[in-house]
């Protein structure tokens, strides 16, 4: 399991592996938003937390189809399924590698990028905290969606559609934490809910993911 995790990390960091893909996408969104909606601080400020969270979510969404699809294409998934490791472990290792290569960089970069969108001050901190609490759920849910669609040639579209509704609660709580933080209200209630979502995902989803994988390998 650790081995799979480490291999995925290494593959991710290799040229073209996708490390930084999410981050770059996030950066792109943040840079483009002012060109789209206009440069005025009064316009940008209020929507900044929401935009940043949506950007992070999309960045996760986009890198999902690599979670299993690459291994499926070159036959490695068949081999992993018959290797002496539980498939739940494979699922968890892959979700964890996805989080490290996508979610974590987002959490670290978000406060800096928030400056570009004129996010009011204490918001930076809360934005990072909310992402830290929320992105693991995004990776776990995403791995589940990726497992469901792995058999389909370029199931990217379907994957997005399946995962989207599952992402909604995380997005609502997460953006709420960041918004309340930016507006100076207490963000503790949505933060607690957000943490609960992440922990729940961690407890349940690896099993669902491995079940989906098993069906798709047939």
């Amino acid at each position, binding site marked *: 399991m650790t081995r799979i995790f480490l*291999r995925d990390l290494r593959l991710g960091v290799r040229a073209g592996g996708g490390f930084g893909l999410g981050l770059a996408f996030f950066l792109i969104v943040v840079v483009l938003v002012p060109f789209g909606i206009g440069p005025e601080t009064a316009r940008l400020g209020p929507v900044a937390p929401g935009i940043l969270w949506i950007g992070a979510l999309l960045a996760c969404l986009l890198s999902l189809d690599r979670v299993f699809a690459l291994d499926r*294409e070159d036959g490695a998934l068949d081999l992993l399924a018959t290797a002496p490791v539980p498939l739940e472990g494979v699922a968890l290792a892959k979700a964890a590698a996805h989080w490290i290569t996508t979610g974590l960089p987002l959490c670290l970069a978000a406060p800096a990028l928030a400056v570009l969108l004129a996010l009011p001050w204490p918001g930076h901190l809360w934005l990072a905290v909310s992402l830290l609490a929320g992105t693991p759920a995004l990776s776990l849910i995403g791995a589940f969606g990726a497992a469901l669609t792995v058999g389909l040639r370029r199931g990217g579209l379907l994957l997005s559609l399946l995962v989207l509704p599952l992402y909604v609660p995380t997005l609502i709580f997460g953006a709420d934490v960041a918004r309340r933080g930016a507006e100076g209200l207490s963000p503790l209630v949505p933060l607690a809910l957000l943490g609960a979502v992440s922990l729940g995902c961690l407890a349940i989803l690896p099993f669902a993911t491995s079940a989906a994988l098993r069906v798709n390998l047939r």
Partner: protein
Amino acid sequence: MSALEVRDLAVSRGGVPLLEGLSFRVAPGDALILTGHNGIGKTSLLRTLAGLQPPQAGRVAPGPDRIAFGAHSDGMKATLSVAENLEFWAGLHGLRGGIEGVLEEFDLAPLRDRAAQHLSAGQRRRLGLARMGLTGRPVWLLDEPTVSLDAASVGRFARAVERHLAGGGMAVLATHVDLGLAAPRLDLSTFRAAPEVARGDVFAEGAVE
């Protein structure tokens, strides 16, 4: 080590029955060569033996955890080097011996730091075959293993299989060409499923209306 036993197996692919009534036994130290024209179902049979698709009927023993499958696509990562690829699989199967043995066996030592994407077709095939020796599993299933290999590499491969058999292993190989191995052949044409008899699907058995 127990023998590979296949009893009255029926195989289908994409819902179409391909083979049925297939029984054979491969004892430790033995190999079996599967032949049959294109599309008969060799690949589908090997996938079924490896536990990757469920049989329509019949039984396979031992279970998938004793079986190593060498398919067409070899699961090697293009951006990792030859050594890194092999080390990953060795580690996953908990093998302690290191990869030097198989690197020698398949003459991959000079290529050990080359990324898999920069290998020629035959070199890449050798890499895929080298993985088999790292699984530590007794039953090898090989689907057209010598594709793209030159004569010297075919010989190297045959010796590797013989060594595996000599150690009590078993091998089932699907091929259209001569592998340079002395082993019984099984022609799958005689087990072709009759189109009308569709097992395992309730909807195929009687009219619904």
